[in-house]
């Protein structure tokens, strides 16, 4: 039985190995036909003419993710502080399951909500189609809130009580004790929550594909459409063939590498936190 337990535990290693192997084996041949440099720095995506430049999608993914963090991180951190240090017990009792529910809502439902409510709202308010960087960022911000809140709250609650008490004893108010001594002590945990949210935002597909317009051009205007790496794969995989298909798998490889880098950053931050 011990062997069987060991084998089961090793399935994780096997799975990561197989996933990497399949992705790279199917994605790398593309770079024999198309220069990797042109692929990553090309600003034009025209599969019909065999032009594959994914820079607009790379920039698009980071643009949308950055917008989501800009909105989601402050709201998430402040909500976590509220739950950990300001709100009364009954309020926290309501908020905790609410945040868990926010984490559980399927991304396709988020996307549908964005498409039916946020997109028409932006269309009426600012003109254009409404499918835009703005809506995608707002939607992603809501989606990453639970990740940031749960991680930050745990980090704040893990700060020893003496930090807070010491600050009070020096004459600080409750608020400034929380913000000046408790929250800074929880900073590594809060940052790792933000990195986790970043990973989730950059990998999101369904919610973005429904609200972002998906135009494969360099995104500058916040009210115009954008296409991310994830959307590029999902949109065109259905009918792509030959080199086009390989280019999509290569897009997946680029996304995979970006997510791996973020994961590495996350475990690096965590390791430093443990050392401290």
């Amino acid at each position, binding site marked *: 039985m011990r062997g069987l337990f060991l084998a089961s535990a090793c399935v994780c290693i096997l*799975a990561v190995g197989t996933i990497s192997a399949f992705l790279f084996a199917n994605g790398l041949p593309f770079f024999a036909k198309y220069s990797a440099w042109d692929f990553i720095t090309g600003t034009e995506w025209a599969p019909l003419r065999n032009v594959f430049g994914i820079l607009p999608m790379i920039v698009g993914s980071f643009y949308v993710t950055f917008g989501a963090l800009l909105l989601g991180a402050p709201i998430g951190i402040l909500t976590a502080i509220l739950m950990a240090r300001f709100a009364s017990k009954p309020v926290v009792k309501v908020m905790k399951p609410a945040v868990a529910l926010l984490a559980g809502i399927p991304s396709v439902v988020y996307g549908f909500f964005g498409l039916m409510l946020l997109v028409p709202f932006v269309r009426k308010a600012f003109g254009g189609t409404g499918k835009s960087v703005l809506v995608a960022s707002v939607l992603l911000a809501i989606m990453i809130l639970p990740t940031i809140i749960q991680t930050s709250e745990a980090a704040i609650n893990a700060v020893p009580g003496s930090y807070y008490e010491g600050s009070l004893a020096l004459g600080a108010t409750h608020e400034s004790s929380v913000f000046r001594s408790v929250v800074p002590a929880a900073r590594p945990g809060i940052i790792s929550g933000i990195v986790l949210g970043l990973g989730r935002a950059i990998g999101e597909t*369904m919610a973005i594909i429904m609200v972002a317009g998906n135009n494969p051009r360099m995104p500058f205007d916040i009210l115009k459409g954008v296409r991310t790496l994830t959307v590029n794969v999902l949109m065109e995989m259905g009918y792509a063939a030959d080199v086009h298909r390989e280019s999509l798998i290569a897009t997946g490889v680029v996304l995979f590498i970006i997510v791996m880098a973020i994961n590495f950053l996350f475990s690096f931050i965590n390791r430093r936190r443990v050392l401290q």
Partner: protein
Amino acid sequence: MSQAPYIDTSVPTRAGRHWGSRILKALCWLAGIITMGSLLLIVLFICINGIPHLKPSLFAIKYTTRNVSMFHAIINTLTMTGLALLFSVPVGVMGGIYLAEYAKPGSRLVKIIRVTAETLAGIPSIVYALFGMLAFVVTLRIGISILSGALTLAIMTLPLILRQTEESLLAVPMSYREGSFGLGAGKLRTTIRIVLPVAMPGILAAVLLSIGRISGETAALIYTSGTATRIAGLMESGRTLSVHLYQLQQEGRFIDEAFAVAVILLVIVVLMNALSSLIAKKLTRKG
């Protein structure tokens, strides 16, 4: 976390109170209201637009373009969930048992398993979609089918079940094991008859969360289990509820029906979350 007493050490007159502190506190409440407001807005918007359209014809056995029934999608979601869990629960639980009960803590292998489980949990669903398509549909020639989709989702849910099992097992007090050993039971018997039952609620909570995740997954399924509108067998293509919702909004003609599907998806997630936290609460009361 109990709230610390509010001690105002500032000047006793009202006007002299710390305005900075008040603003910070107000900002926290504002953020909390935005968070709760977003959730309320989403749930209410979906329910108000969806519940009036939950007609009996939406649950007709046979799908036609006239009734746009979601019955087939519900059955496919059940098959998909059952099949994916059939793969991921045994592997995840046994792996968790190894990590918690057998492995030397801090050994190199355990570290590698932890890192790879974390990696699996972080891989985006669109990458799983590519992998599932390349590995199961094309290379293993299973074709676009429920089985291909379930295998893909099994790998996706594995890290959650593995980690939760390990944590639940580690939370069981050492005295349980020592008592069992003292009565002459072996390692395996102790683990399965004594330790595992105590950890069961934690494992069950992970399974319920996985059910919620599987029923909500879309991106990983479109190219592995496909979008056919029928009650699918294992080797046939069939869409789950969330894929059904995506397809309906894309066709654009059945928005009311799409809202109704979204309501059903929300109900599933709320139900799974509630059950899971109920079980977790029971667990903490016992401990």
